């Protein structure tokens, strides 16, 4: 297994170009939203970040499933890194969503904002994932437990979504309905560029973090074999 790979730098370059282009499009090209005006442009960051967080959690759960399936220990680190990235993007979603809520509805936090509440639940859940990892000794048992917990997380997402939808009358704008995206072509294109940019950024961060963690493990093994 090589510690160097070329996917990380390529993803980082792609993320830089796409995000730069996406932000330029969002600020210079797309028209103002008819209802919310200029402030709606945070949509081009907020929603891609949220979707990327979901993608990271899903990726982490997929790696967890692979770990339980094949018992190959390398998946443990991959699952952990993906969830680590998911939490970072989840916090960003909470922050950007909060800013948008302040501008649109005049409050920093609204319990009728179902996506924000969902991200808060997920944030608590995945913070406990880190507590679980830190308070268990490294080894196959910890890898298994983390994997099971990661799978619980990916099941919790739709269940919590349903619960929050059941509980609250919500004011969150729904853009993606069964009839496709409810926005203009220019807006949708900008959104897609931004989404690709944030996904590329997540990939770059994931690769870098994974390489670092693998190096860490390798270093520890070397130290142990020396002493």
């Amino acid at each position, binding site marked *: 297994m090589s510690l160097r790979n070329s996917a990380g730098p390529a993803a980082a370059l792609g993320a830089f170009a796409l995000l730069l282009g996406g932000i330029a499009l969002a600020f210079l090209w797309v028209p103002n939203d008819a209802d919310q005006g200029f402030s709606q442009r945070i949509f081009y960051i907020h929603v891609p970040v949220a979707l990327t967080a979901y993608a990271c959690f899903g990726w982490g759960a997929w790696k967890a499933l692979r770990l339980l399936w094949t018992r190959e220990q390398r998946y443990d680190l991959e699952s952990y890194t993906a969830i680590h990235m998911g939490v970072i993007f989840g916090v960003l979603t909470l922050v950007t969503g909060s800013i948008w809520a302040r501008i649109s509805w005049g409050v920093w936090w609204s319990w009728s904002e179902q996506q924000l509440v969902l991200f808060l639940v997920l944030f608590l*859940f995945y913070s406990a994932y880190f507590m679980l990892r830190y308070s268990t000794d490294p080894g196959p048992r910890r890898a298994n437990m983390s994997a099971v917990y990661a799978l619980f997380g990916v099941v919790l997402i739709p269940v919590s979504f349903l619960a929050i939808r059941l509980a609250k009358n919500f004011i969150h704008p729904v853009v993606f309905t069964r009839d496709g995206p409810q926005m203009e072509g220019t807006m949708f294109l900008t959104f897609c560029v931004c989404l690709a940019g944030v996904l590329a950024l997540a990939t770059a961060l994931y690769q870098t973090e994974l390489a670092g963690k693998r190096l860490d493990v390798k270093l520890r093994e070397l130290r142990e074999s020396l002493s």
Partner: protein
Amino acid sequence: MSAYFGDVAALARKDLLLELRARDTVPAMLLFVVSALVVFRFSLPTEASDLAATGLLWIAVVFTALLGLTRAFAAERDQRLLDGLVLAPCDRSAIWLAKGTSVLAFLVLAEAIALPAFALFFSPIGWETVAAFALADLGIAAVGTLLAAMAAASRARELLLPLLFLPLVIPIVVGGVGASVEPDPGRYLAFLGLYDLVFAILAWASFEYVVTE
């Protein structure tokens, strides 16, 4: 198949017998849930509605369940029993099912005291609240038993279980409180049933990985 349920019955019987002789957990849960209700009575302003009190009843029950769950694997951990159980020639999920059954039994006992106490102190409760508690107990026992086994294997133990358990129990509280206070309890009860089904299958299938390497 009957051998599987024979294993489950034997393991569950062991837990119930242990509790009957040592009386470690259930009296503590009963005392805790009544104390919590009394504390809630004083933490509410006098003009607070019965709806707020119903919400607090759910919190009291969730925390009582947490108290029971922290004790669930205490005997196994202290006396290294879990290693023996894992080595025994039975399906590992039988351990989960048996432990879940005893957790469920303790929780139902605690609620048999908590619900009448709530009716006495606060306001009478309807059939939909009882049904919601019955469904919620299944979910709490299913998820809680798995997480208790995880927490028992960690260094932090009692500290870790609430952190793992509370985010997963939020949907149960949403469904339970909804069924208790909303005029249309049907869909909340259906949601609780769905939660039980999904998480029971997941916990049943994944317990083996939590107790083995």
